[in-house]
């Protein structure tokens, strides 16, 4: 499998700051969003097939950049606390200390990554119990009704669903992803094959396109649609799986 996820995907402000500091040697008060975007598009182009996870992280990065640029450097929660009383100099000192602390964990994360990489080659034996011993296993169907099965399934869905794409950095999408999800689910029931361009042709603006995209990612994650993109930056084909029908307006 050629998953070359060797990209330096960063997610948050500290990571971003460090990256800018180490790679671009830029004044962080003057982040060139265009340049960073170009760089990311380059990365994306190098990937054989568009990896949705990377694409969505890219959205986060782009949004984060805008946020930093507009909102200043310190994380929002801090503004409410005593940080406000600090002088500009002290704020910087604090920021430096936190960046160094963060860098330590980032390094540790890389070492964890290397560790799992080397451990990945070991596969544990995970086979089912031999037929002779099957009867010893507890009969998990005792006392289980179809309603129980449904409840279990709904619980798993719920567990999954609040991994809704973390949109904390795309603070003001006036269109809610939930309503988009509903709308798309309905559309796909009427017409199970659609293209992303068709779907967004009437979009009122970029934010609606983004919301549509995020909603599709969510449906994809739930396994109720399949996505296919023949060429990089080509149109995305969306196809509803049969399981879509089993979802009864699941997002309201």
């Amino acid at each position, binding site marked *: 499998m050629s998953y070359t996820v060797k990209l330096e995907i960063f997610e948050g402000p500290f990571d971003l700051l460090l990256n800018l500091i180490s790679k671009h040697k830029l004044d962080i008060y003057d982040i060139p969003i265009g340049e960073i975007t170009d760089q990311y598009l380059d990365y994306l182009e190098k990937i054989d097939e568009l990896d949705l996870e990377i694409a969505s992280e890219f959205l986060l990065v782009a949004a984060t950049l805008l946020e930093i640029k507009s909102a200043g450097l310190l994380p929002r929660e801090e503004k409410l606390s005593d940080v406000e009383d600090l002088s500009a100099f002290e704020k910087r000192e604090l920021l430096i200390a936190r960046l160094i602390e963060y860098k330590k964990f980032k390094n540790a994360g890389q070492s964890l990554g290397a560790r799992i990489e080397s451990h990945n080659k070991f596969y544990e034996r995970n*086979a089912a119990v031999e037929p002779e011993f099957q009867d010893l296993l507890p009969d998990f169907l005792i006392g289980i009704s179809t*309603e*129980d099965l*449904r409840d279990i399934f709904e619980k798993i869905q719920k567990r999954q669903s609040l991994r809704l794409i973390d949109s904390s950095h795309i603070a003001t999408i006036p269109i809610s992803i939930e309503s988009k999800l509903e709308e798309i689910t309905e559309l796909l029931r009427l017409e199970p094959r659609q293209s992303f361009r068709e779907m967004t042709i009437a979009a009122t603006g970029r934010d609606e396109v983004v919301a549509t995209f995020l909603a599709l990612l969510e449906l994809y994650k739930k*396994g109720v649609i399949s996505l296919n993109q023949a060429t990089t930056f080509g149109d995305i084909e969306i196809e509803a799986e*049969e*399981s879509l029908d089993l979802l*009864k307006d*699941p*997002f309201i």
Partner: protein
Amino acid sequence: MNELLDTKHIIESLLFVADEPLSPKRLSELIEVDVATVKNIVETLKEEYRALDRGFQIRQVAGGYRFFTHPANAEYVEKLILAWDGRRLTQAALETLSIIAYRQPITKITIGTIRGVNSEGVVGSLIDKGLILETGREKSPGQPMIFGTTKLFLERFGLNSIKDLPPLEEFEPDDTTKSSIEKQLYSEEIVEEEDKEGEIKDDGTPSESDG
């Protein structure tokens, strides 16, 4: 000769992790050697385990070769299995079964994605219990196997068809979830509105904020 040794090494690994019996043909496809060689190698392995008196053996069953524990130790194996964490097993099995019931036909990979853990072993044991079966292959790269529930599953739950499963209820997120969604989506508006509220408050007018 060295190559044969390598092949033996690989076949041993494959049989060792496999969830279901592997046919000589399947093994030959996986490692690209001919079926006769595969058969020879497996015989060699069988003989080695016998000679060295290992605690496991390879036997040929319907469908191919499979590893088994040595029958002499059955008593201890039973003791171990009886002490397994029943809740863990039950939960994994029920989760997997409910996903297959509501999402069939479905691949192992999708089951794994939905559950968030590798579900290989559980799928195998549901097959052994006759509750699910392989229903075909997906028309996608790699053509992964797809699974669905069996007639036995319907009988066991007294269903005429899979359509008789209770419909999924409307997804109603709990309060934490809701407020987290709202926060994520409307954080900035809320801040603005709070400011407004502050002004209105002086008049004693209660303000209703709509998102």
